[in-house]
């Protein structure tokens, strides 16, 4: 058994093409990003080596830590919403009528590009003409919130479309995982008198726990580098209230022409992602788990 499944030649053959590709197209840029972070460079013309100055500035940069906090909040929020997605997937996978159709519908927001989603939610959140506030005014609310213009709630308001947009992504994966659970196990439990909730908790979830863990990592890392909708809807404003790491990086590198510093932020983002992933691995690890 082992000898067949540890054939070095086959392993190399299977892993090498993909590995070369990501080494060339992802790791070289990562290394270069770290290197540009050592430079005083506006992206045009000559670079000047300044050692760790950008990184020292980064560690002391209040704006960076504020944006990191916002990204982390989004990560926590996304992780918590995984529970909801999982419950929905359990319901859809339990062979109720119309599940197939509903599952298809739920992914639709993901098919739309961020341009469209951004436009839609800008309209929904508009303080005067927007859907939410028109409804609130109709219900007799005198001063409905300003949503994206209110620096106290803008971040939370932005979480709504993000969670909504990605619902389908997680549901489709959980659903596929649940469909992989051997039917006879469920039947056996039913015969033993287990109710659907017990079946979900005792059989289904333990069997797909590997998938759930991957989804937690994806949700957190994905949130930490999230950019699109926030940039379209608020550009990180007002007054930095919705600035996240990736939008901060973009503004510094591409709008303010601090490419060196922007690269340092990008590298910092990567380091924070690595730390978070390591932490999640620690938190969720059990014996049968992957080693990193």
């Amino acid at each position: 058994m082992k000898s067949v499944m540890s054939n070095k030649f086959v392993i190399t053959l299977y892993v090498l093409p993909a590995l070369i590709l990501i080494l060339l197209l992802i790791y070289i840029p990562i290394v270069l990003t770290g290197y540009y972070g050592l430079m005083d460079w506006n992206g045009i013309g000559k670079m000047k080596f300044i050692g760790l100055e950008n990184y020292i500035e980064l560690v002391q940069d209040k704006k960076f830590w504020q944006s990191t906090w916002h990204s982390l909040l989004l990560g926590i929020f996304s992780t918590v919403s995984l529970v909801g997605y999982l419950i929905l997937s359990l319901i859809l996978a339990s062979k109720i009528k119309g599940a197939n159709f509903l599952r298809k519908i739920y992914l639709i927001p993901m098919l739309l590009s961020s341009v469209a989603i951004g436009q839609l939610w800008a309209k929904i959140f508009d303080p005067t003409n927007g859907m939410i506030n028109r409804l609130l005014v109709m219900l007799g609310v005198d001063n409905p919130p300003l949503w994206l213009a209110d620096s106290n709630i803008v971040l939370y308001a932005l979480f709504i479309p993000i969670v909504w947009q990605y619902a389908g992504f997680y549901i489709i994966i959980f659903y596929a995982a649940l469909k992989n659970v051997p039917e006879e196990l469920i039947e056996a439990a039913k015969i033993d008198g287990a109710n659907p909730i017990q079946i979900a908790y005792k059989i289904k979830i333990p069997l797909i726990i590997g998938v759930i863990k991957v989804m937690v990592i994806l949700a957190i890392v994905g949130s930490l580098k999230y950019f699109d909708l926030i940039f379209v809807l608020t550009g990180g404003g007002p007054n930095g209230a919705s600035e996240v790491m990736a939008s901060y990086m973009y503004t510094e590198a591409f709008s303010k022409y601090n490419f060196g510093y922007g690269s340092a932020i990008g590298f910092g983002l990567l380091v924070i992602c690595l730390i978070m992933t390591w932490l999640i691995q620690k938190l969720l690890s059990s014996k049968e788990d992957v080693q990193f």
Partner: protein
Amino acid sequence: MLKKKTVSVLMSLIMLVSLALVGCSSSSSTEESSADGKKVIKFMHLWPEGSSNAQFSIVKDIIEEYEKEHTDIKVETEILNPDQYREKLKVLASSNELPDIGMTWSDGFIKPYVEGDMLAPLDDIVDANLKDAFIPGVKESYAVDGKTYGLPLELNISYVFYNKEIFEKYNLEVPQTFEEYKNVVKTLADNGVVPATVGAKDGWPASFWFMYLADRIGGSTILTDVIHGKAKMDDPAIVKAAEEVQNLVDMGGFVKGSSALSNDDAKGYFMNEQAAMFLTATWELPNYTTSPDVAQEFKDKIGYFKFPTYEGGKGTDIKSYVGGPGVGLFVAKDSKVQKEAKDFSAYLVKKWGEKSVTDAGVIPATKVDTANLDLAPMYIEILKDLSEASNVTTYFDTQSSPAVSELHHDLVTALFGKQVTPKDFVKQHADELAQEQE
């Protein structure tokens, strides 16, 4: 069983071959001369056919004319929307791969490119082909250390556009002074009409209000002086201007939640007659005059007035405007067809000046002789204003460096959202400016 394997191997082979083929067929387009021995000028601009049809068509026609007159030249265009244009230009510059001709903004935008030694000086071509063609002062916005690096195409100034029907309904007169303006605001706000709409999220539309108030209170040179270190950002006049902005916010002078509205969102309020006034620049004129997409009824209701003067302020001349050149053309220093590129860009500027007002409703940076043109009355009046202007202060964000400009946008958004006090507003500007002038 073997069949499946063969199929999958075959499939991967097909993939690889198709990849290789795609590769081969594309290799020719990057060379300097095309197959028929013509010299190729690469020209990158930001007027896609979809959104800027008029500009796109003018440029296309000019290229065709030029190619007819110069049979040895081929002009290849790459067209991106403005946001993506900026992003791509940045990446190209970092790799020293600028197109032969491209578009640039003035002052603060062009400076890093000049300092990075990317652009060719254009004074020779201006002297030869475009002497006295430009409206005085505009070309200088593209100059660094006395050399011109950009040929301006557009010139915009800002006015308050207003809905005459709404003004009539509440018996309002066009305000001449800021006190009168405040009364107009008060009447409108009391009647539940949005007095003015502004897309403060984008920063620059909100900055128009701040810049005009600074101009009227502190005099027409104050903001330019700040950038050149001749005046301080924490000058009491500038603090006062920021305070007046917030006074207007407190009075309900602007659309609700403006700090989350983009310029386009905000414009919607004016176009749908939910807001009475809109401080914007002359690039909006087609919407009020010639654009076939806008109802004539609406166009008939729109008038404009000059930003009111401020009682006791230093800027007493109502004919002083906030405005500035829009985009201009640059020629890359490393261009292998630099001579031809220069010649073509001068040709483009000249022809553009002849066509842009009539065909696209864009006011060019070159002098326009209105006598022979069939123009909407609003254009004729505004072109006349322009020739009589006592001063045009270039937009603060255009004049300043990219970093200050970006900070200014953030801060002015916060000023409108009342997330920053006037004192803090000027202080943060002053700090960044001081850091830069070190």
